[in-house]
């Protein structure tokens, strides 16, 4: 798994590439929590994720809850079919704000 972060106005866009699993989700968790402190909004690009397991989904739920407590925004975009299927299997898609493109994700504020 590779993570890259860039600024887009006041928001931060985080891009993840590769597999998010029990081995790599702690890294993702740390990066997301750190960056949530640095901006009012995080937009997570999931287009290059080949695989995500329930520890990855759990990480996203934790970050979402933390963002709500801090009055910040945490949104997802670019869900690949594989990611969409895992979201479906875990029945959690409804709790997230999900967009098709980065533009839409950033425009949502």
């Amino acid at each position, binding site marked *: 798994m590779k993570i890259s972060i860039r600024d887009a106005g006041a928001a931060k866009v985080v891009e993840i590439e590769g*597999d998010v*699993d*029990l081995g790599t989700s702690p890294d993702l968790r740390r990066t997301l929590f750190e960056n949530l402190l640095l901006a009012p909004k995080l937009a997570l690009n999931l287009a290059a994720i080949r695989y995500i397991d*329930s520890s990855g*989904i759990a990480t996203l739920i934790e970050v979402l809850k933390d963002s709500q407590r801090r009055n910040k925004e945490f949104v997802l975009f670019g869900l690949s079919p594989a990611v969409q299927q*895992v979201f479906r*299997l875990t*029945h*959690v898609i409804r*709790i997230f704000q999900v967009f098709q493109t980065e533009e839409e994700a950033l425009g949502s504020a």
Partner: protein
Amino acid sequence: MAGPKLSLKFVMPSDPRYLPVVRGAIGPLAAAIGWGESDCLAITLALDEALANIIRHAYHSRADGLIELECSESADGLEVALLDKGEAPDRTKICARAVACDQPGGLGTHIIKDVMDTVSYQATPAGNRFVATKRLRKTI
């Protein structure tokens, strides 16, 4: 074809860095048996979750526990069996969490049950045994 059926056996440490090896094999195995792309992903996820549970719960995230995995093509689908020597699962916690809620946890055992047709957890003299099967016909 009356020849041998495919079977795989992995002997692996309870270290998450080996999970991609299992995932790499199980998806193509499911495809070779006859499942389509989305079932292959679901089966991969279910097995990965079962392994992750052994690492986290049976071995409390120690990386040096022993896990044995056997996957085989059966007459009507796939069988996977896992064995570990760690702490036995507390049966009352398996699929105990309500689904469709927003708690970050308790998802793995539901995924396994949803994806596979049969799932069993047994205590044996050799260790904790997990067996799951899936018939080719069923679409999830």
